[in-house]
């Protein structure tokens, strides 16, 4: 019998895309998405994250939640790199509409046009929407 550290994952790698469209805290979507992303990463899948519409607010720098009595989960986006999740894409049009730039974000991302994002979306095996 294989020891736990010798376990091998022979499953097929699929392309998963998570599309984040909601602001944090007002609804539970952002946090739920993050949990599913972390679980998916544990299965060594090809994961990419898209932040569009109000989803761009999820990765705004400087979130301080003590005043609203909720957990600030924004630092967890910085842990994604350690989970080998390095494909983070942000919709430029959504940033512009909200007066934000890539400088406002707590993680390194690739800012893309909607046309580029549409192409990427089309290449996925599984698309999950939050």
């Amino acid at each position, binding site marked *: 019998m294989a020891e736990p550290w010798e376990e091998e994952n022979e499953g097929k790698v699929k392309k998963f895309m998570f599309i984040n469209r909601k602001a944090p805290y007002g609804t539970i979507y952002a946090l739920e998405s993050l949990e599913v992303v972390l679980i998916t*990463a*544990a299965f060594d899948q090809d994961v990419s994250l898209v932040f569009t519409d109000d989803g761009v607010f999820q990765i705004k720098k400087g979130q301080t939640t003590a005043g609203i009595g909720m957990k600030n*989960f924004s630092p967890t986006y*910085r842990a994604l790199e350690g989970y080998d999740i390095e494909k983070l894409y942000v919709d430029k049009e959504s940033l512009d509409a909200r007066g934000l730039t890539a400088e406002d974000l707590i993680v390194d991302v690739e800012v893309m046009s909607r046309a580029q994002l549409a192409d990427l979306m089309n290449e996925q095996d599984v698309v999950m929407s939050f």
Partner: protein
Amino acid sequence: MPIEVNGKSFETDEEGYLANLNDWVPEVATVMAKLENQPLTDAHWEVINFLREYYEEYQIAPAVRVLTKAIGKKLGPDKGNSKYLYELFPYGPGKQACKYAGLPKPTGCV
């Protein structure tokens, strides 16, 4: 079931994880380890303290694979491997060490 530490009672969930992260003091780990007949050496404490720092920075308990890699980065490859960590924490470095460190169960750990 709550655990007794220094005459104080701390709330835990049904799997023995500390209910409130901020309740943690080192004696929590000592008591939890004793309940599982698990000796705690400096090598164990190194991992427990590493997990506390990881949580402080990222607000999650890391998956085992991520923990292993992160420990390798910080403490060297002789410690950043599954064999070393499983020998220290035979119930699984994710589950057991996180529990002693007062962290929640790692996400994706069943």
